[in-house]
């Protein structure tokens, strides 16, 4: 079974986000970019499936500017077999990415697609569910544990108040939650090997997908700052403040 994983190039999670002075977005010039952490988990899960013999080939998909090649290379260095990049300089929103993914799925016919549950830039948490909808496939979202066998996937999902177990028919789309696995680091020999792995470059036009943004971003601002309060010396003082000043206990 082929497994397709989607990887997004985002601002590294360790970078402090700065809003642009003209309020059109956040500063991305000269900022370290990395693979979305939830997508690393998706790549890792696919590799583990291949190591167990449950997957035969792993295709790493990305969409965006030419630099997304680097993100695909990271997936290839971790253990994916080949890459597909849909190159686009348009801002790609979740529905557009889901449509691009669908076009590639139609071509590649994977038995399973694994994506991160959300990207840490736009925090949308939409693409996997949208892809499943467009394909008419089942969806196993916020996966904490995944077991694939005999045409079905058993998924343990992270939900409000605990965990939920579902059984879904394959083919399916899985979205990864934090505790599904701990992604590996690519070793130096594997990074070297990844340079020789093929990456196919496509365009939205060639795939016949309209990627024009549906949501218009009117402005991006700093969040309102919460002012630091006071430090109290003793517990008695704290309890007094909470009772008589804040009135919360």
């Amino acid at each position: 079974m082929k497994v397709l994983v989607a990887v997004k190039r985002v601002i590294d999670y360790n970078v402090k986000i700065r809003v642009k002075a003209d309020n059109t977005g956040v500063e991305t010039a000269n900022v370290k970019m990395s693979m979305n952490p939830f997508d690393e988990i998706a790549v890792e899960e696919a590799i583990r499936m291949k190591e167990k013999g449950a997957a035969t080939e792993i295709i790493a998909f990305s969409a965006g500017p030419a630099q997304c090649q680097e993100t695909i290379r990271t997936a290839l260095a971790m253990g994916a077999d080949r890459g597909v990049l849909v190159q686009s300089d348009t801002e790609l929103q979740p529905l557009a990415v889901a449509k691009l993914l669908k076009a590639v799925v139609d071509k590649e016919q994977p038995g399973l697609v694994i994506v991160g549950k959300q990207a840490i830039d736009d925090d949308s948490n939409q693409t996997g569910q949208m892809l499943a909808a467009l394909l008419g496939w089942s969806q196993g979202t916020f996966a904490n544990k995944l077991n694939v066998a005999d045409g079905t996937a058993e998924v343990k999902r992270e939900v409000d108040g605990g965990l939920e177990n579902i059984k879904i028919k394959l083919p399916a789309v899985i979205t990864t939650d934090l505790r599904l696995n701990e992604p590996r680091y690519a070793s130096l020999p594997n990074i070297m090997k990844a340079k020789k792995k093929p990456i196919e470059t496509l365009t939205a036009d060639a795939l016949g997908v309209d990627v024009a943004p549906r949501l218009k971003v009117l402005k991006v601002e700093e969040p309102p700052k919460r002012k630091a309060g006071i430090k109290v010396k003793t517990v008695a003082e704290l309890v007094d403040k909470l009772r008589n000043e804040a009135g919360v206990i």
Partner: protein
Amino acid sequence: MAILVVAAHDGKTVRSNVANAVAAAGQMGSDVTVLVAGSNCAEAAKSAAALQGVAKVLQAEDAAYANWVAEDIAPLVVKLAPGYSHVVMAADSVGKNVAPRVAALLDVAQVSEAIQVVSPDTFVRPIYAGNAMATVQTADKIKVVTIRPTNFKAVAAGGSAPIEQIGGEGAKGLSSYVGAELSKSERPELTSAKIVISGGRGLASGENFKLLETLADKLGAGLGASRAAVDAGYVPNDYQVGQTGKVVAPDLYIAVGISGAIQHLAGMKDSKTIVAINKDEEAPIFQVADYGIVGDLFQIVPELTAAVEKK
């Protein structure tokens, strides 16, 4: 404009965040319908009808809807959607699972986790874990929106909307529910608790969370944790407060042994009053705390528990 709120429920009552979703919907238009889909969900439909600001409740009875399988619920919502300008859900694990499936089937964009309704087509939503706020406008005919419950004041009870029975769409047979492993707790649920006490890496072990449990029981508080504490295995993952966990906004939030990573702050900075207990006076949590106390939590927490007891 007519708004459709899709309500999650437990069969008896709709989730408390439905009252927040109805409040948000009321800011998008005036005619709010709530969809309660389920199996034997008459009581839940009644609880939705009792919310103020609800004009009508649609009760869809179908065995397929018993466990909120997105593949089965989405077609029902999609069938109803053309009669409405907006489809609104709370951004909880049900809304996050179902709403994007609905949006894609309608070929419309989704606005995720709106925290403010600027106008019926314009919303403010946090991006980059709350480190920036984006104002977005949607041109789609049907607007699919999930809202962050803590940012909208829940509507009160006291309404009496009519309940209309509608049929279900049956099961697609794509997905089946096997069971749940829900954490059993006597304490109030995190997202609805008036007081929340959270522990971080400073607790140093799961055993030490007992200290917080004692204080939580005295205050009737919910118990939470930072991602560091969850990752270290001190407590189960549904305790996690933060961007990748639960977003809470109680009257009082007590952060114990939590340094205050950005992703944690994104999950609690809307709390009314914040107390921080930490031995490191440089910890970023003090920058958002109304009352900070620098010192050893293993002394301060028992002292606080004793002091709260003495009225």
